[in-house]
């Protein structure tokens, strides 16, 4: 009259294994769920009863007690429905404990007995801790990439029961949620970008090395278009990385990532978005913010100067540590957030300040704007490139530039050289690793030294340029030493913020 079934549940952002114990005894007929269920979880008794009856199974006219162990931890959501139903069937003898003991069950029940998808299915499946997991068909695709888990899925409760009894086979697992075409639709191809050789090159370097990139230019210079191209240039994610990404995205509970799970995500939050959705948090369970959703991908901040200072300050921790820690009353969560930052900005409020002698702003409004852009965040960009409006000849020229696919192939080669050398993209190399793994020729060293002596390059700036130069050398097929040409290019792409405003002097 007692059964134990494994499952998993969300509490806040943490995913915990849950043991569903069901006890059926004589007494006044009733159904109680204990063990701190939330409202959705408590309502599962009505869903389970209806689903059992719709599936042609018997509802016991006995006293039923379901305990969700560990009992002291709050359980959130309807993902335990399937486990409760299976546990009940095992307790009344419709299924044997041996038949259900090897599986963990995750899924929400409909009143008609169908299985509905659950939020954070991939995390739940990983946490269920068993070799075999039973999931709704609609959630199975998301989880299929998870290694080391025997995955079973079924469309309805009766199909689950039949499969457990050995009367029928499990449904076939659908392929991973592949929206391969999606990226091509929403993101422009690099071939559509006319002119801008410098910015194209900077994009290629940023994609290959994971360097942060700031594009500065007047309105109409194509900075938004260029910035949104970056993610599509990056190489595919490895299996571990794509599972990290999928887990983070599944925690938000909504749509699966807009692209295929092996592509780096592109997140482009609007500048008026609240701080909580940028960093993570929320009242009903802590959810990852945009910085974590961009993990292993690209965080694209269009019009950087429009973001409130608090939002820009909040970016400093993830840029430094590769993760965000969110402390709330009930829990303390650390989400990974290692992204490549690409941002765009105007050189000054009127937008014309890039060209010497053509700014129309007052000194006051310019200095206010400069203060917003400068500061610690501006120092984090590895490359700062100024754009000009494309010339009419370039726009009308029929010959298009290199398409995304060509550049992506080069980027992939350079990235694999870098990963083979240092175990990470060049953008993440520590200064210590730079000295060890990225030797430079004496001519290149002289070039950098002159900049440093001239007071135009800080120590941090030197390391930035060094990392970028390493990527340039990788792209140019020089995997050993960084040459003068590579260093010159890296230094040229690290335009000082003053230069971008076209005012090197007063």
């Amino acid at each position, binding site marked *: 009259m007692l059964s134990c079934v494994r499952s998993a549940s969300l509490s806040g952002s943490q995913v915990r294994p849950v043991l569903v114990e069901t006890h059926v005894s004589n007494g006044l007929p009733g159904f109680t769920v204990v063990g701190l269920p939330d409202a959705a979880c408590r309502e599962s008794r009505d869903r389970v009863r209806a689903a059992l009856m719709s599936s042609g199974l018997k509802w016991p006219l006995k006293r039923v007690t379901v305990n969700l162990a560990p009992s002291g931890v709050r359980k959130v959501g309807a993902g335990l429905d399937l486990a409760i139903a299976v546990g009940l069937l095992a307790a009344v003898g419709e299924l044997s404990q041996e038949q259900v003991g090897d599986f963990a069950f995750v899924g929400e029940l409909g009143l008609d007995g169908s299985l509905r998808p659950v939020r954070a299915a991939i995390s739940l499946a990983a946490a269920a801790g068993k070799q075999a997991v039973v999931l709704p068909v609609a959630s199975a695709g998301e989880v299929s990439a998870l290694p080391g888990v025997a995955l079973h899925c079924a469309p309805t409760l009766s199909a689950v029961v039949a499969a457990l009894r050995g009367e029928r086979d499990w449904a076939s697992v659908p392929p991973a949620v592949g929206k391969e075409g999606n990226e091509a639709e929403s993101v422009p191809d690099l071939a559509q970008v006319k002119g801008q050789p410098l910015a194209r090159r900077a994009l290629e370097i940023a994609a290959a090395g994971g360097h942060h990139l700031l594009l500065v230019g007047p309105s109409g210079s194509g900075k938004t278009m260029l910035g949104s191209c970056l993610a599509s240039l990056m190489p595919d994610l490895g299996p571990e990385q794509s599972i990290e990404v999928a887990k983070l995205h599944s925690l938000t509970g909504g749509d699966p990532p807009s692209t295929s799970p092996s592509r780096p995500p592109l997140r482009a939050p609007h500048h008026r978005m609240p701080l909580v959705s940028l960093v993570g948090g929320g009242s009903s369970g802590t959810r990852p913010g945009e910085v974590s959703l961009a993990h292993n991908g690209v965080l694209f901040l269009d019009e950087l100067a429009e973001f409130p200072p608090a939002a820009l300050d909040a970016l400093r921790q993830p840029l430094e540590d590769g993760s965000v820690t969110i402390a709330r009353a009930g829990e303390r969560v650390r989400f990974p957030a290692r992204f490549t930052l690409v941002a765009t900005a105007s050189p000054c409020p009127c937008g014309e300040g890039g060209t010497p002698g053509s700014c129309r702003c007052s000194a006051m409004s310019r200095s206010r704007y400069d203060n917003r852009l400068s500061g610690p965040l501006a120092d984090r960009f590895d490359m700062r490139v100024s754009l000009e409006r494309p010339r009419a000849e370039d726009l009308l020229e029929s010959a298009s530039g290199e398409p995304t696919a060509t550049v992506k192939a080069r980027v992939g080669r350079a990235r694999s050289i870098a990963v083979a050398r240092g175990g990470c993209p060049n953008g993440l190399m520590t200064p210590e690793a730079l000295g060890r793994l990225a030797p430079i020729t004496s001519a290149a060293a002289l070039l950098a030294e002159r900049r440093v002596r001239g007071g135009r390059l800080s120590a941090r700036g030197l390391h930035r340029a060094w990392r970028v130069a390493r990527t340039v050398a990788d792209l140019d097929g020089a995997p050993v030493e960084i040459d003068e040409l590579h260093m010159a290019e890296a230094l040229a792409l690290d*335009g000082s913020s003053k230069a971008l405003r076209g005012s090197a002097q007063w």
Partner: protein
Amino acid sequence: MVAAGEAVSAAVAASGERKASTDELAAAIALAELPRMTPARLRRLLVESRAPDSWRELRAWPSSSNRRPAPDWFPSGAGGRHGQAELVELWARTARRVEPAERLAAYRRSGTGAALWWQPLYPAVLGGDPSVSGLLFFRGELPFGRPVPSVAVVGTRSATPYGRDVAYELGRALSEAGVVVVSGLSEGITACAQAGALAGEGMAPVVVAVGGVDVVGSTALSPLWDRVAARGAVVSEVPLSRRADKWRFPWRNRLVAALADVVVVVESHREGAALATAEAAARRDRPVLAVPGSVRSSASRGSNALISDGCTPCLGPEDVLVALSLAGRQQGGARRTGLLPAAPRCRDHAGFPLPVAPGGPVAPGGSAVTDGCSEEERAVLDGLDDAPATLATVTARSGLAVGAAALALDRLVGRGLVSDGGGWWCRLPFAPPPVCGTAECTVGDLG
């Protein structure tokens, strides 16, 4: 010429013919510090009446219960008769709390001088000008005590490298010819002109401040401000510590025009403030010169318009000296060399052209200069002219890869053939003297 520290007492000592002038200066300072004071109002209190009388009258002004109409010589406030009464009452309230002698002592302590319109220190050129207040605050040494020619060099804040160079060279050449360079001190043309005037051993320049003489426009400019105050003078009609309010700029521009014998507009946008200075000078029958600029540059639109309206074009310092009737004062005679003397355009970190090493004029850029250049450097040089271009433009024009173009530019800057205006490169018209001739010579080394 008298240093500012003792200037007040010196001014007092020099005014033998007027008794109790210390009182008058103290009262004038106290009047200038009243709230809502403008140069025009101050003029009525100082020039059309005597300062101590105005001050006594204000302090004795009855409180609002038995209000009487202000005397005719009193300045009018906004809103006619009623506004005037309100203004006078505000002043009277303030005046009762202020002791003029204390204010004078405070100015002495801070090293700020003050000169009244009838005192010998007061610039003679301002005498009879109806738009000045009659009281001038200053730091440093006022060069106006004896007849010295003065030239205002004015222009836009958002200047091109061309404009900055021209302003710098003009400032230096004029100061070496013994001319006082007068201008405001804000970013762009005026800062470069002042820096040029300080570069040589010539006449020290004068800055006309918008706010008080201790209120620097921007922090980037404060070293330059201090250098001007140490060698030349900073003058203002505004009392100490008053902010550079927007409405004070036209008054300042009028004072610049009034102080100068000739006004030179180096670069001005179509509706630039420099044009207002030029207009103020034209109204005083002072010659206005304009430096011609590229017709494509929006920073030269205003100055070019001045030329098409009939202003004399300024093609070099000699033109300014001719306008001052001082031709021949320039060192080395009045050769017409144009504004491009043999100077290297290596710049220091602040962007100033660095001082020239003695090298003499060098042949115009051409075959001899590019002899040691590599293929890439030549390709880059061919794609450059004196309009500033970005690296993207250089790359596109030369057909080189980004790295090769960047390296070539770096070397060309080292050779002194190209100037680096912070991400904007342009070709220099002359080869430099040997001091800059090697690729190893860098801006940092020279600085």
